[in-house]
């Protein structure tokens, strides 16, 4: 079992605290990516409506903002609030999403792509929001435009004249406004394109949160919109600087840096952080990469279940190369495979009931051959009375507590619970084990995204390979948290206390 590093411990502490409030499928910490895209969608949708009500001339822009915030029907207030706070929530959720993936080291191995493609989304999201604040053309917008110009002027090729466009009342024109409007619409389009690219290596990405979680976000934003209506400040006046200005810190923090550090300093901080973030997959590679899954052609019948279940789209079905009677075969792209073993659990050839001496599946993790699992089971059971032992299958990635050797537990460890073919449970019970305890990541918290879902679906008979219908389901206890040694102990005792009704007779 991997000893958890400080970061993954932090992730677990946060997750566990939130799990106390939200049942597994609704835990927002486990769907931050999806909540981020929902916040983006809320912002875009409210923005489209607001655009219809917005006047893009210099004099009209400020009035447009006021009209919405003073709308007696509160429609404008809500609309402005959803747009503004939706954007703020987007930034916050995106940073939390990044934080969670960072805590879980999800930039290592094949995940470098998802991580790296996320980095430009931060800049795009930030720019989209910043230009939105400019469109209000109040004193905050003017300050922001000037501060941004001062920041840009620190770049070698941008001349110091940029800021001149905003210094005098008459200097500004409607062309500038059209440019800002163009950016404010164009950048989010790039953002959506970037999001598409971000999800390219994720099979069945959870783009939208669970409905209850989504409604929760929408309601929360609605409540903030009404309790703290988003408001314009005084009209932009190049010849007056207010004593203090209210900033949207989610977008305008760099202005404060520019003020206190200089433009070059802000570039150093922002550029440095971006570079650090982008190069993290190469700075911290972690332990050596585990060997990717390998297709064993003679055992592959081309059923494509592995391809359907692989969480990272690492398996493609290709035309048969060995002249076998099946039309297709599985092919693993080593660059995409994180070695989770979920494909092994999906393969019909993984069943331990096969009569071959050395069990080999159609697809295998070279470091954890499935045959070894059957071997262990057989050997242990040779010396044990039926009903005196429980199979405890643990996921290697949900670090557990200390685990003393225990004669009543037959402990096995897999990369992911999704690696355990359901037929193994059937096999274990028929071999005389009193039951099985599955201990892994809690719903929605699977290290490999889909392992928990496929495991439960296969056992419930909703997804192939299905657990045989008449296997006693009450003999299988799924424990979400495997670090909970006491619960595992209880579950094992429970299974041992109540012997099975129909004893497995013939299996041995």
């Amino acid at each position, binding site marked *: 079992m991997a000893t958890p590093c400080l970061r993954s411990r932090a992730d677990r502490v946060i997750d566990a605290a939130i799990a*106390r*409030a939200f049942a597994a499928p609704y835990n927002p910490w486990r769907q931050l990516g999806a909540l981020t895209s929902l916040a983006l969608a809320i912002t875009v949708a409210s923005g489209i409506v607001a655009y219809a009500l917005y006047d893009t001339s210099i004099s009209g822009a400020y009035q447009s903002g006021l009209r919405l915030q003073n709308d007696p029907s509160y429609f404008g207030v809500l609309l402005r609030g959803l747009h503004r*706070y939706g954007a703020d929530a987007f930034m916050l959720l995106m940073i939390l999403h990044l934080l969670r993936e960072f805590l879980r080291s999800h930039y290592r191995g094949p995940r470098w792509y998802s991580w790296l493609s996320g980095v430009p989304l931060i800049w795009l999201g930030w720019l989209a929001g910043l230009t939105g604040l400019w469109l209000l053309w109040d004193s905050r917008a003017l300050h922001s435009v000037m501060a941004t110009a001062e920041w840009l002027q620190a770049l070698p090729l941008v001349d110091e004249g940029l800021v001149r466009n905003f210094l*005098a009342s008459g200097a500004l024109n409607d062309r500038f406004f059209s440019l800002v409007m163009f950016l404010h619409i164009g950048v989010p389009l790039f953002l959506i394109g970037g999001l598409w690219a971000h999800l390219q290596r994720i099979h069945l990405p959870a783009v939208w949160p669970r409905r209850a979680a989504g409604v929760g976000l929408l309601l929360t934003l609605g409540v903030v919109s009404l309790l703290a209506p988003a408001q314009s400040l005084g009209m932009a006046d190049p010849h*007056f600087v207010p004593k203090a200005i209210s900033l*949207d810190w989610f977008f305008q923090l760099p202005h404060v840096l520019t003020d206190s550090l200089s433009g070059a300093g802000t570039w150093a901080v922002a550029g440095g952080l971006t570079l650090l973030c982008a190069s993290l997959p190469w700075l911290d590679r972690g332990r050596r990469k585990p060997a990717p899954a390998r297709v064993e052609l003679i055992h592959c019948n081309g059923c494509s279940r592995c391809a359907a279940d692989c969480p990272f789209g690492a398996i493609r079905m290709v035309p048969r190369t060995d002249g076998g009677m099946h039309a297709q075969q599985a092919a693993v792209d080593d660059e995409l495979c994180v070695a989770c073993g979920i494909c092994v659990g999906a393969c019909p050839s993984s069943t331990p009931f096969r009569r071959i001496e050395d069990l080999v599946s159609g697809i295998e993790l070279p470091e954890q051959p499935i045959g070894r699992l059957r071997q262990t089971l057989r050997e242990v059971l040779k010396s044990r009375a039926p009903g005196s032992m429980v199979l405890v299958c643990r996921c290697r990635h949900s670090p557990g507590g200390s685990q003393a050797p225990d004669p009543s537990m037959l402990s096995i460890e897999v990369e992911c619970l999704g690696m355990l073919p359901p037929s193994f449970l059937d096999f274990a019970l028929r071999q005389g084990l009193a039951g099985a305890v599955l201990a892994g990541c809690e719903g929605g918290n699977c290290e490999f995204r889909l392992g928990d879902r496929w495991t439960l679906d296969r056992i*419930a008979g909703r997804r192939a390979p299905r657990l045989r219908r008449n296997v006693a389901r009450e003999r299988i206890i799924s424990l979400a948290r495997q670090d909970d040694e006491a619960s595992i102990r209880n579950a094992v005792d429970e299974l041992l206390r109540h012997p099975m009704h129909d004893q497995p007779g013939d299996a041995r």
Partner: protein
Amino acid sequence: MPESGTRPLPFPARVALQCLVLGGFAAFIGVFSAKPAYPLRGENDAIVKLSFTHAAQLQHPCRERNAEELKKLAPNMRTQLDCPRQRAVVRFEMEMDGKPAYRLELPPGGLRKDGPATVYRRAMVAAGTHRIAARLSDKPSGEFNHSKEAVVDLKPGQVLLVDFIPAEGGFIFTKE
């Protein structure tokens, strides 16, 4: 199949914790969307912004090429006058209430040093009446050939813009 896992808290405590999480999220957004306010100046400060962009005179006067020099040039380049494009440095000085505020030498912009010199500075001053004197040289000799002096009264928060536009008569001080 029996399932277990983190047991959520009992009903009232769970709802309270949910409210705490969502409320905390809402409060975080609501607050940092506008607060804390960022101070831009002191109670009694006014602002002086200096900004102009100006192309100085050419650094070297045009001169006639002699016959030998002309011969060395490609036929299509043989013009009588040789006018190096490099411009002079703009010298700028400003005094406020008799004390020097800026003393700048602004090199011409552009890769060939043939573009305008540009400057942007901003500074806080105490609100009230100030005598401001600005002078500028755009000649190769560095001799000041433009100047303006004025007494301005600045209210707290008011921005005085010191600009230089020769077509509009040289220095321009604007306050509104």
